[in-house]
């Protein structure tokens, strides 16, 4: 009897732009699947066309949603840059959302209470940004220490800390920090004007974008030009080898988590100082989670991370637009993000391996994946 055998083997030859191709292919696949889903849901193919037309034009044209897209790109890129560094050593910091919250909370504390009377705008902003970064770093330090010394799984601890941060922030804006003149809405008073991030000309884009671009180079430098970056890579590739060659995993883990938390905290700080000028309920639309996909889709490359963050900023803005125009639920974006991540994993595997179909060789037992047994 003829048996067909599936053999999965590693591709030896890699072609140019492979990483780029993987990302693009997975984006296309997930958009197609999403399209089918919308088609089934609404029963109208014209809706699919309309959806994608809106999703691809609105966020990327000036006069329409471009400024919004860039404003959303900033926190996404900042968080993703921090995540690249920890993901490189295969540490799963899922807590960026909480670290972002802490950054925003610390900045608010500074802007409304501690430094509210500061007259020098530049030093006030600098101080508040540093404040936010430190708060994010400290929040990330908790799971880092728990993992380094008690071997606690960072995925669970960072997630628990996310929930705690969300309720902490809610407590503050529903309670002690609530704006007395805010008609009982869950938000704080507006920050003093001195603390607002200046805009670039009259573009509507704040200077957070410059900070982001500087940090792209800083992250690149750390990852590829320093001994630290080298050690992170070795730990990620082979922790045992790293340990034998005398690299301290604990030390690197803590440094990387502090960096990642600081960037997330900074993103939170920039968000409240540059966009809302106050702390309010739902100030983050899950940036900390979306940034995880941004980092993965960027294949852990800092420069690609900015481009992917721009695209995902667009996706978020497009999603909000679709909510208004097509009455789509915002959860569509979450579903699409999940799909993108799945297709990315699948296309990665398909590019990395190839499936060979051969005729069965009855003598050779074992050694191969056999679809029939």
């Amino acid at each position, binding site marked *: 009897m003829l048996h067909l055998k599936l053999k999965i083997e590693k591709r030896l030859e890699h072609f140019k732009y492979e990483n780029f191709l993987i990302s693009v292919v997975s984006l296309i696949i997930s958009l197609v699947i999403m399209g089918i889903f919308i088609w089934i849901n609404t029963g109208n193919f014209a809706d699919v066309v309309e959806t994608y037309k809106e999703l691809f034009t609105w966020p990327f044209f000036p006069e329409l949603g471009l400024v919004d897209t860039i404003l959303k790109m900033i926190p996404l890129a900042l968080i993703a840059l921090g995540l690249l560094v920890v993901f490189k050593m295969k540490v799963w910091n899922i807590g960026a959302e909480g670290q972002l919250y802490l950054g925003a909370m610390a900045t608010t504390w500074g802007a409304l209470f501690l430094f509210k009377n500061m007259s020098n705008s530049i030093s006030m902003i600098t101080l508040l940004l540093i404040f936010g970064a430190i708060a994010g770093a400290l929040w990330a330090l908790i799971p880092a220490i728990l993992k380094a010394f008690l071997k606690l799984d960072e995925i669970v601890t960072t997630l628990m800390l996310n929930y705690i941060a969300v309720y902490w922030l*809610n407590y503050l804006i529903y309670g002690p920090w609530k704006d007395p003149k805010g008609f009982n809405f869950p938000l704080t008073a507006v920050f003093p004007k001195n603390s607002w991030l200046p805009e670039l000309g009259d573009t509507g884009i704040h200077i957070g974008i410059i900070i982001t671009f500087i940090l792209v180079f800083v992250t690149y430098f750390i990852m590829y030009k320093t001994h630290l970056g080298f050690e992170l890579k070795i730990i990620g590739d082979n922790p045992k080898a790293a340990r034998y060659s005398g690299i301290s995993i604990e030390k690197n883990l803590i440094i990387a988590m502090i960096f990642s938390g600081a960037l997330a905290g900074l993103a939170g700080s920039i968000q409240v100082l540059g966009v809302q000028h106050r702390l309010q309920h739902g100030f983050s639309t899950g940036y900390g989670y979306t940034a995880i996909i941004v980092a993965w889709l960027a294949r852990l490359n800092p420069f690609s991370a900015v481009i992917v963050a721009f695209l995902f900023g667009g996706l978020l803005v497009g999603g909000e637009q679709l909510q208004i125009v097509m009455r789509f639920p915002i959860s569509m974006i979450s579903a699409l993000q999940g799909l993108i991540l*799945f297709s990315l994993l699948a296309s990665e595997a398909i590019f990395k391996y190839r499936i060979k179909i051969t005729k069965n060789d009855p003598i050779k037992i074992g050694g191969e994946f056999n679809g029939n047994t």
Partner: protein
Amino acid sequence: METLENILAAAIRSGTPLLFATLGEIITERSGILNLGLEGLMLIGAIFGFIAAYTLQNVYLAFILAMVAGALFSLIHAFVTISLRANQTVSGLALTMLGTGVSGMIGRNYIGQVAPKFSKIDLPLLSKIPLIGKVFFSHDVLVYVSYILVAVTSYFLFKTRLGMNLRAVGEEPAAADSAGINVFLTRYFATIIGGALTAAGGAYLSLAYTSMWIENMSAGRGWIAIALVIFSMWEPYKAMIGSYLFGGIMALQLRLQAEGKINISSNLLMMLPYLTTLIVMIVFSFNEKFRKRVGAPSALGIPYSREEKT
């Protein structure tokens, strides 16, 4: 006495969704597959169960359909991690995002609707035992199903051929493979069963705990279940204790909020389950058995391929 009974009974009820999910994840992880998509799977179970109950007006059928939906969604995770050998952590996160998104999308039209729910059945004789009767035997049928499930899962994992094979695959896939066990099929089986049970936990939320659909109604229970698997050292009976302990904290928090006697902001009370998870993890980590991860499958999270021996 009356209130204590009530609180303990409430602990069992709010611990039940955790128990279903934890049992499911124990089976999955015992085979070496880490599924971090529990949060998404619970939401899938909750919404599909709710829609089925709403349309069919039959809670039993709805519960089964919710499990089928969970099995199908976990099949994606199984395919990506087992056949394509992709990163299990990332795939699990993707599953959570997908589950959250899909449940939100299809559930939008069901917000504010009410579906039939499982009714309370006092078990004859057993429910008459003082204290114990009220706490353990005066619930809906799903609670009783979960009791049986604990025993069945434990028996299955430790006493049956299939269960031993499953654990062998999680410990030493290469050795299991040479002993003639189909590693791929076993892992598919464990992931799908785990997904179905997790969805059952979600369905409990929308079919028994409440009788409605609320977006993101699992509220982190999926992640707590993942922590519970670690606390329970991958053993079903210990999972039962852990689930009810956390169920108790959730019930207590709700009670304190409702009573309003204590002057604490509800937002701070809502932190309690997550803070407790964190603190319990820290306290446990000083226990040697826990730190050495006794019970953890050795091959957990590592993709298996016959050609690349690691």
